[in-house]
């Protein structure tokens, strides 16, 4: 999933203060929790309350899109609802915000989220952690299903480095050493031999900027 966190309400209020009629567009897609209809309504209520304290009366309309990053889908849902809106607040990740900005080039589209990374949630602890960097050359087959590109602080392909201490990273004592995790996983699978194979520096072009389907 795409990991985002809510922007402070003050910042969002600053974005919208020149406008009165605002469409809040949720996204049911990849964030956790999905910032769908509930968050759209909650945010409209919070901003209405915050607006009152600033002597500002906003009129919000709330809606949601299954995936805001899908240009075709987002346009089909939002175009019929955009009439009268002077600005749009997007609850999607940075990709969704940019998609809406393409669909409505004449309107200001504001983000309500800060987008962090592609990751997973440890639900009981409520922690969201990075899992994938989109390197374009997936290594998980030989690293026991643990990505060193995203999860090793240094992105090393041949770890661990000398900074692995009791399973933690020297740069952040709370962060697991990804190469230690890989070692333990491969040991469990009886595949420690994989660690002896040298992996050449990765080709950064593979990450790319465009893919044709």
């Amino acid at each position, binding site marked *: 999933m795409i990991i985002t966190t809510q922007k402070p309400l003050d910042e969002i209020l600053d974005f919208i203060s020149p406008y009165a009629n605002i469409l809040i567009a949720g996204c049911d897609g990849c964030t956790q929790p*999905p910032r769908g209809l509930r968050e759209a309504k909650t945010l409209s209520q*919070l901003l209405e*309350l915050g607006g009152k304290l600033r002597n500002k009366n906003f009129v919000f309309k709330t809606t949601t899109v299954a995936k805001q990053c899908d240009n075709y889908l987002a346009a089909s849902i939002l175009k019929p609802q955009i009439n009268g809106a002077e600005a749009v607040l997007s609850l999607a990740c940075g990709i969704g915000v940019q998609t809406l900005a393409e669909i409505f080039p004449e309107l200001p589209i504001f983000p309500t989220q800060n987008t962090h990374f592609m990751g997973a949630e440890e639900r009981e602890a409520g922690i969201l952690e990075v899992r994938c960097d989109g390197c374009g050359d997936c290594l998980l087959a030989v690293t026991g299903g643990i990505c060193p590109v995203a999860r090793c602080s240094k992105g090393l392909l041949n770890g661990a480095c000398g900074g692995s201490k009791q399973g933690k990273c020297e740069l952040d004592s709370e962060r697991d050493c990804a190469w230690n995790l890989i070692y333990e996983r491969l040991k469990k699978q009886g595949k420690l031999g994989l660690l002896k194979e040298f992996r050449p520096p990765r080709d950064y072009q593979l990450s790319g900027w465009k893919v044709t389907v």
Partner: protein
Amino acid sequence: MSQQVTRDIVAVKQNEDYCSHCSICSSLCPYQALNKEAETGKIFLDIEKCQVCGLCYSTCPAKAIDTIYYDLDSLINYLGKAKQEFDSDTLVIMCKGSAPDFSGVEKLFGVSKFVPLIVPCVGRLPEEIYFNALLMGIEKISVLACDEDYCRYDRGSPVTGRKILALNLLLNQLGYGQEVINLKRHSLKVMVDANLCIACGNCVFYCPYSAAKLASPGGINFELSACRGCGLCVAMCPATALDLENWERERISMLISKLSPEMEPPKILVFRCQWAVFPPLNGGLSPNIRFIDLPCAARIDNFHILEAFLKGIDGVLIAACSEEDCKQEKVSGKAQHAIATLGKRLSQIGFQDRLYFCTVAPRYPEEFDRELDQFSQKIRAIRSKEG
């Protein structure tokens, strides 16, 4: 808050002089709060474990247990007044846990005019109340208990079933006809709006009873027999696709809209878990305070808290059970977390002091009053500062 002061008064007391050591109470208590001492045979009450279900009060043959909630005198007093007010000879006794609205009662029992008596668990009612009702001119008594596996106090509903069976036999022998007391069971459960569901699976994670199942493909499906109606999934659903029977979003919204205009400032709205605070049967209301009872604090929805502020409420107090006392599977802790998260966002717009979450228990009746009093003072202070 100051516990030493509030805990002098407790809700259940045992009178050792009357106790015959028969052990019925200790064998029925769902919480092992009443225990027999092996050597002396004496029964001891551990109030810390007591959840005030009242089963011991209603079943003690020696009347050695006293309770301050819904004791026989206050029940009889209420019935006398209510019979005149509702002008009917049909009494409908309901557990709060499964009591529907008036039209729901009509559907279940086929009566449109009746005297309602709603208590937290019907298991707390002693036999005498049925006799007294008949003596007052009540002709038909309907009892709505929760489904046995839905009973918040485990044994309240099953024991009531047996009690009514025996009472009907007895009343029949006395010439009152058959089935004077009509028992039905009911529970209030989750409802899914498939058109809104985005199949995110949040309810699967939050449901403490594994009632929510997400098939892929296939979407969300609730195993209703497992649902215990806590409402946590409803409050957490990112798509607002879930609702809880009798505590529908629309119904709570309408209630807030109705209550706010009739209140005097500083307006305080209390969302209370119906197992954390037991209201009196004939309770008077302060002009500035109103209550909305919830099936569990887990049903409290950010939406309703914010809605209350927008409709002019000055302060919102949430009274929940502690996680240990939670009649559901420790969901009150999840409710507390959700409130804390909302509190953080409210602090970004200067509203943080107007929302307060407290945990209280009916075993210490003064605890809630004290919390409410302190919160009222805080809200009063905020208002006077604002001028």
